[in-house]
């Protein structure tokens, strides 16, 4: 087990290096650079080439690519993200609050997804091929079909017409004012969680159906155990694992993948920051964001695998 953990951790390094090379090169192919973008934003389109080159020199953009790359890597190796090319401020500072927001939203959305998927999946499996089953299935397929940003717009619309109230539009961290914070984040979490529950619900249903046909369930029934006990002790324990896996893997993508929903609810999360950074050709900030999102994804994957072995004694990695 210890060996396996170490091997998995080491295997992340080449993948992360690949991500770094990919985003580094992709950004250099994007037409224009931060200096041009900044002068354009200031409204001064006709800036002399000398002035632009001087700015580029200040940012290190005149260096050869391999040198820029190694400088960046050297910084990353010391956990130093560097400074934003656009604002000149520390990237770690700039990302901190946005990361807190995106992480909280991802956790809340996954919680909503889990709370929907598990009971609905069990319900559908128990009442297989009845109208309950069909309703649950249509509900979950519909969730997969509705864009969560549109669901968000509808939520805001309903609250606006019914309660004359809209969620607060300025982010308050949970440690400052938990109520204000939850009042804002619950709605996007519902919109996103509903969508992401769909896969989990279907998984829960099919896993449950499969488990219910196993011999040990028949044995438990034959012993005369209560249905409730069979469900909670025998069936659920075995069926829930793949569902939790699917939901945690989706959780890994929620951190950076909620760009559009963030836009609807006016949330300045990592997704919106990415859009902003890439539009400004802020290489350093974009790179840092991508590395953060990719590392998060790899670590969640890693922990899911480890947790699997820990929860299910049948799985032993060597």
């Amino acid at each position: 087990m210890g060996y396996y953990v170490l091997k998995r951790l080491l295997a992340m390094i080449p993948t992360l290096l690949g991500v770094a090379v990919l985003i580094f090169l992709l950004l250099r192919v994007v037409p224009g650079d931060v200096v041009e973008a900044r002068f354009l934003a200031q409204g001064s389109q006709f800036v002399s080439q000398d002035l632009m080159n001087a700015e580029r020199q200040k940012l290190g953009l005149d260096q050869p690519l391999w040198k820029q790359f190694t400088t960046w890597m050297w910084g990353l190796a010391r956990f130093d993200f560097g400074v934003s090319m656009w604002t000149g401020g520390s990237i770690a500072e700039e990302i901190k609050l946005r990361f807190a927001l995106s992480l909280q939203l991802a956790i809340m959305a996954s919680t909503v997804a889990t709370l929907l998927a598990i009971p609905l999946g069990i319900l559908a499996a128990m009442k297989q091929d009845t109208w309950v089953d069909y309703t649950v299935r249509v509900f979950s397929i519909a969730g997969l079909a509705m864009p969560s940003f549109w669901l968000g717009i509808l939520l805001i619309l309903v609250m606006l017409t019914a309660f004359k109230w809209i969620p607060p539009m300025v982010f308050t961290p949970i440690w400052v004012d938990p109520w204000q914070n939850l009042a804002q984040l619950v709605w996007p979490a519902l919109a996103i969680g509903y969508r992401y529950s769909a896969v989990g619900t279907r998984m829960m249903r099919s896993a449950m159906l499969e488990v219910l046909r196993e011999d040990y369930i028949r044995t438990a029934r034959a012993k005369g155990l209560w249905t409730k006990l069979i469900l909670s002790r025998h069936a659920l324990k075995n069926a829930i694992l793949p569902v939790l896996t699917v939901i945690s893997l989706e959780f890994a993508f929620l951190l950076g993948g909620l760009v559009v929903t963030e836009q609807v609810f006016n949330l300045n999360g990592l997704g919106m920051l990415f859009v902003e950074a890439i539009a400004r050709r802020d290489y350093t900030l974009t790179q840092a964001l991508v590395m953060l999102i990719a590392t998060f994804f790899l670590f969640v994957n890693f922990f899911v695998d480890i947790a699997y072995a820990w929860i299910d004694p049948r799985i032993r990695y060597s």
Partner: protein
Amino acid sequence: MAASPQTVDSLTQREPGWWGVIADFCRRRPLGALGGGIILFMVFLAASANLIAPYDPLETDYGAMLAAPSAAHWLGADAFGRDVLSRIIYGSRTALMVGLGASLIGASLGAVIGVASAYFGGRVDLITQRVVDVFFAFPVIILALAVVAILGAGAGNVIIAIATPMIPRCARVVRSSALSVRQMPYVDAARASGFGHRRIILRHMLPNVMAPILIMATAFLGEAILLEASLSFLGLGVQEPVAAWGLMLRGAAVQFAESAPWMAIFPGLAISLAVFGFNLFGDSLRDALDPRLRTQ
């Protein structure tokens, strides 16, 4: 063992024609047939948009600005007085074009890479799979946004941007099917006959992993339509004044959501219905083609 009467029967029985297959599919999978019906309806709308749309989708009419649904404008009009129904009908063209284009490119390139990776094996396979790992670490929308930044917005570029994250996903799935195909004697036979790698990959292996490719392609279709809507909603996809569903939800639709909710509701319904149709159809197709994948 002697041939059972059943086998003889199936030999003498006539092959069911295309219509027979379709009728059988509809009878066995009513939900899939419903999905297929929605898709056909959408194709019909897209094909005959210029005949059935009551207005020109680009025609602005300041007299009808933010007009509520009425006999003249069934689904109302937007902030420029453009007819919402007509824009939704024309929007189906954009959605289908981007969806089909992206899933066709994504699935076919991914399939070729996946089969080649499985066929060559060894170091080629290892490197390909590590590259696929790298792409997997990006959320789909982040990768699509990066490609849009390079190529610029617009329908053609959006197709490429959406196809890009799909290529590695398809490659991974197709590779695992192709690995078992590679063990088949006919692949060895083809090699022994001295055929080139390209011919073996394209003519011998690819047709035998068509089922997973088809499944991936239909699954991508719905996702591609959603992604196109997302990108357009962000203003980074299809550009005004082209009629596209995601674009219709942008800007004024949110701004005037309270006074003119039809602008926000109907285009979203169109997106949901289209994706719903493709998902239903894709699911049933998957069940019909590959029962092993049913639980996934």
